[in-house]
């Protein structure tokens, strides 16, 4: 890849200082890049640090959390060095974000129109009339019928799917270069999920944005993402282009995730599941963070946390199994 990365996250650490003794290492030394126009998926269970990674990029981490180290470069500009005020010009304008809960993500006391136009007026310096016209266009673009009426309506008058469309309309309103979608379809009906994801893919193409898609749904990943990063315990454990990752899965955790998806062609009675739950971010096991749940755990795993290493072209894995070219395939 010779292109300049759009977003470059470099050794990012976001810790939450819970009390005097406990520090939750929600994001612990993460580095990745997103290139213009590509769709990158960030995958992992709840509590693996996906959302905190996204919020760190937006610098919307609330206390007691803090970005303690690392750099976030957007088109070469270091975001962590910007002042609070400068950062408000980046949010919504260069990077936009869509959240998981469309039901509560819109302010209940203002009209849809008000909430879209305030962005256009701030970032694009439009006047009231221009902003209104643009808001109606945007609502039409994201497939909301009777847009002229909807801009005068309140969020509670719309369904969850419609609200998520409004969120997308808001996110693309200032034509950002990067769109971060944090589990945008988790709270929606299955039938609506595909519509929303297709809409986002269309918008990505139409506005030539890069998309950072946060999800725990590998089905979604296989359909929409160019590249996948799998997160566990605040770290990236495997990273590869989507097809490569699905075809030659390396990390035991990724294998576990894939194993827990029901497959139509196979007749099984029970789905496989990864044993246990994600350990809390203030109490990771020593050594590899997945060692407490890994079926291939070795003695070394409980002592030394492996590095993320390139083992094939474009394929990074954080696992002791691959250090000397070995693998878990029978």
């Amino acid at each position: 890849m010779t292109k300049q990365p759009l977003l470059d996250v470099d050794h990012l650490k976001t810790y939450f200082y819970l009390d005097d003794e406990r520090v939750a290492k929600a994001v612990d030394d993460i580095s990745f890049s997103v290139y213009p126009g590509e769709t990158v998926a960030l995958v992992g269970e709840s509590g693996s640090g996906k959302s905190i990674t996204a919020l760190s990029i937006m610098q919307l981490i609330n206390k007691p959390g803090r970005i303690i180290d690392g750099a976030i470069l957007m088109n070469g500009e270091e975001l962590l060095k910007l002042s609070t005020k400068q950062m408000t010009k980046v949010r919504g304008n260069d990077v936009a974000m869509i959240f998981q809960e469309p039901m509560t993500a819109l302010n209940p006391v203002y009209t849809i129109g008000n909430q879209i136009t305030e962005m256009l007026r701030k970032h694009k310096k439009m006047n009231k009339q221009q902003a209104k016209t643009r808001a109606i266009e945007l609502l039409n673009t994201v497939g909301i019928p009777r847009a002229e009426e909807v801009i005068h309506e309140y969020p509670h008058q719309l369904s969850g799917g419609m609200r998520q469309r409004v969120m997308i309309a808001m996110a693309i309103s200032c034509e950002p270069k990067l769109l971060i979608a944090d589990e945008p379809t988790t709270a929606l009906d299955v039938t609506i999920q595909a519509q929303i994801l297709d809409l986002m893919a269309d918008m990505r193409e139409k506005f030539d944005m890069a998309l950072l898609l946060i999800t725990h749904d590998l089905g979604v990943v296989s359909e929409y993402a160019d590249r996948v990063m799998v997160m566990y315990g605040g770290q990236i454990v495997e990273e590869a282009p989507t097809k490569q990752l699905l075809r030659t899965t390396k990390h035991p955790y990724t294998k576990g995730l894939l194993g827990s998806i029901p497959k139509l062609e196979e007749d099984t009675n029970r789905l496989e599941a990864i044993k246990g739950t994600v350990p809390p971010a203030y109490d990771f096991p020593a050594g590899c963070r997945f060692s407490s749940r890994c079926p291939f755990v070795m003695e070394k795993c409980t002592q030394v946390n492996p590095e993320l290493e390139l083992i094939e072209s474009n394929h990074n894995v954080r696992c002791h199994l691959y250090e000397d070219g070995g693998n878990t395939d029978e």
Partner: protein
Amino acid sequence: MYKYIIRRILVFIPMLFALTVIVFGLAQAAPGDALTGQQLADPRVDPEVYEKQREALGLNDPIPVQYAKWISNVAQGDFGKSLVFNGRSVADLIEARFANTLYLGIFSLFITIVVAIPIGIYSARKPYSLLDYAATGFGFLGLAIPNFFFGLIAIYVLSINLGWFPAQGTLSGPGMAGFEAFFSRLHHMVLPGITLGLAGTATYMRYMRSEVLDVLGSDYIRTAKAKGMSDSNVLYKHTLRNALIPIITLMGFEIGVLLSGAVITEQVFQYPGLGTLFISSVTNRDFPVVMAITLILGILILIGNLLADIFYSIVDPRIRYD
């Protein structure tokens, strides 16, 4: 929205009716009547005389008839005649007092809002800061100190020792007019106003703090920030309106509480409002006055609730459509 307001007003009417029945019923249930006191005071008078007077005043009529007479008079603004103040009409007696109490209530509410809301917001933005702790401490004190006690301390310190504010009354002297009278009135209202508003200020401060904290943590505030809205926009546009919704509801009740709570405060400051009149009327068994004041306070509480509901529907669009 208009539909909603009309519906609320329609509900107001039966409540008003129930209120009059209760007030009348309570007055009836109280032992003795308007003449009992006089009878006891002067036992030499022939009981026949009182019996005749009772008949003449309609006190022996069946209760529903008495109620009907009373309510039709009240509807015309005629609350009867005071039994104590040389037979002056109750409406007359109340009018001037009512204005005083109303001024005091408005003044006190104004102080409450001006003090409590900014401090509450500050506390929420900087929780666990020095000022937040100070405000919390003040809140506890404000709620814990009884009105009358705070009033006495205020008089002792600010009036007697320092001489900054007058301790009682409404005007410094007779024959004042215009601005002079207005400022004299304000000057006299400072101590009773603060005393009356103390508990309310403490309550609102705490409410405002927890509401703003709550709203600041909500998803739509995160959305607003993610949209690149400035801190002041997030606070004053997106947070405040949502945080004020429950406060406005409380405010409606507060109108009633302030006016009826003024009874004690007015007594402490010898402020010639409805409260002092109420207490003297109760001790004198001046039933027409007691009934009139109870009814007026009841109506004010109902109006307060009605206003709260209407304001509520204005700030919160979700209310209008159910």
